[in-house]
């Protein structure tokens, strides 16, 4: 077990697109244990993705069960996750282990359906909503080389504001 170094902005490697996992072996599971230890060592992160520790494979860990009144699937290790359906949108504030001392508002889908494999290679499907769906989308962005700062909307933007269109 080891705590791994977290890449932080402006490290260009965070922009890299990660490759699918093909071998579900002990080496993979040992890396996942290190990734989890790294997540827990930092400031209260609900999720972490492999590319944040410079392993450019489609692996992420999340756990939002510590948040009160939040529908969740507990501790999840998701390998090769793929969102197959999404619905709704909401603004929420996000921060990231890879972007210290900054938070911003981001629009995310409120409901998603997801396919993913577990560390043994078994396929599963999940339905997620709200905070858990947000966490999943945040982590999946890392696999595609995106950070929440790529999606931040103006601090003045809010859902109740309506644009007035000139006719």
């Amino acid at each position, binding site marked *: 077990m080891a705590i791994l170094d977290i890449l932080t902005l402006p490290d260009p490697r965070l922009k890299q697109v990660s490759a699918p996992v093909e071998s579900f072996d002990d080496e993979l599971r040992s890396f996942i244990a290190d990734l989890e230890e790294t997540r827990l060592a930092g*400031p*209260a*992160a*609900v*999720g*972490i*993705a492999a590319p944040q520790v410079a392993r450019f494979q489609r692996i992420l860990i*999340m756990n939002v069960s510590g*948040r009160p009144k939040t529908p969740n699937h507990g501790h999840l290790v998701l390998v090769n996750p793929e969102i197959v359906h999404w619905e709704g949108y909401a603004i*929420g*504030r*996000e*921060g*990231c*282990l890879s972007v210290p*001392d*900054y*938070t911003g508002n981001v629009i995310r889908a409120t409901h998603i359906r997801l396919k993913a494999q577990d560390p043994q290679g078994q396929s599963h499907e999940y339905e997620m909503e709200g*905070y858990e769906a*947000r*966490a999943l989308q*945040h*982590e999946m962005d890392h696999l595609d080389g995106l950070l*929440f700062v790529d999606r931040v909307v103006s*601090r*003045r933007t*809010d859902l*109740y504001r309506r644009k007035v269109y000139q006719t």
Partner: protein
Amino acid sequence: MPDWNMLTLVGADRPGIVSRVTRALYQVGCNLGEASMIRLGGNFTIMLMVSGEHTDSEIQAALAPVAEELGLRLHLDPVQGGLHRHLAPNLQVRVMGADRAGIVADVTEILAEQGFNILELESDVAGHQERPIYIMNIQGYCDRTLETLNAALSTLSDRGVSVDVSPVDVLIG
């Protein structure tokens, strides 16, 4: 020792203010910190942290030609940097009502009594000229519960102001 200057600048809005001001500062070797720049009514306003070994009068002199040409008024205050210590808000307060004098004072007085620290406040006068509405959005930190704050603010609805307090969760991922 104050190591930064807070530059306050205001003028009638027009394209080019930000570029001209920041270019002039860059040319005399100033570094810029955090900033808030926004159009308020027909005015463009800048609050900008400016660092460097420059005195107040050197910065004033560097900006004088631009200020003169674009009709900007400016002011400088020496301040401590205090960077890399962002405070995250845990609550958002949305306020809306028919525009009248005293809304901001009424709302923020109650918040202050609850120990609410305002980190950000923006407000707009919306609606039509003959029937203006006031919309304000506050983000801040307070360790009281949502119920306590809502109870404290409930007197405002009797005065025709709608106030909604909601949690701001920062998701760290």
